[in-house]
């Protein structure tokens, strides 16, 4: 990874430390709904419950491919 990518990563990491721009819980709930409603998350069977994902992985013997995103900053 070059410095630009790494720097972006670090800046993103630091950005993750910022408060959610004084958004109310209602606004954050709305943003979460919008994020999870995105088409990309409905084109494959994404599981959003970590416990359920682990239980399913144990049951099927398959690994978990995890994607971490955020909704509070949009």
């Amino acid at each position: 990874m070059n410095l630009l990518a790494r720097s972006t990563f670090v800046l993103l990491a630091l950005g993750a430390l910022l408060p959610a721009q004084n958004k109310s819980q209602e606004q954050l709930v709305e943003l979460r709904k919008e994020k999870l409603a995105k088409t990309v998350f409905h084109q494959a069977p994404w599981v959003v419950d970590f416990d359920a994902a682990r239980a399913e992985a144990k049951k099927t013997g398959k690994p978990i491919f995890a994607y971490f995103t955020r909704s509070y900053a949009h």
Partner: protein
Amino acid sequence: MLFLHNTSRVDDEPYPKLLQEKGFGGFPSLCFMDADGNVVVRQSARTVEAFTTNAARLKSLFELRAKVASLRADASKSADVAKLERDLLFVEMDLQCVAAQDAKERAAKLELGKDDLAALEQYLFGAEIRDLRGKVRELGQEETSNRIAAMAKAGKSPPKDQEAFFWQMTLTWAAKNGDGELGQRAFDVLDKQPAPESMKNRLRTMLEQSKGGSK
């Protein structure tokens, strides 16, 4: 098994700190986990090629683990298992999926050569940095840069994948505390890597600050 974690900052969110707990600090982050939720392979690029490569690495790792487990059960193959235990440890270190303490304990049971021991030491140092990186929010940027700078002042150099974070934190500390020598060391590493001019200018400004320029 596809798992999507969304950090929402909504009060009822289960596992609100999962991103940090898994050692990540930015969005989006991708990885493969085992069925217990332990990160096994981190994926830096969001490409099909990276996914395919990492899936293959994951398969090799799981096969190696299965082989070691099988040999462990057979006392007559203790010599074979010792070599495979070493190979497994280094594959897991390469994938950064073994905890520092676990790596230390397993290494202590193996007869490692000089090069292996040096690689282990570097891995443990990298793990220490990754741990700090995951705690930036908890510690704050100032305390994190204090700790990283202390390592740099002790003459330590991070693994390649931790260089940018390590030296940016060090340069930040040096700029704030007026340590020109340390600032120069950090700058020299960061300056060798491609970056937009705005970022280069920012680094130069911090270098000047470390040498007593305007803060």
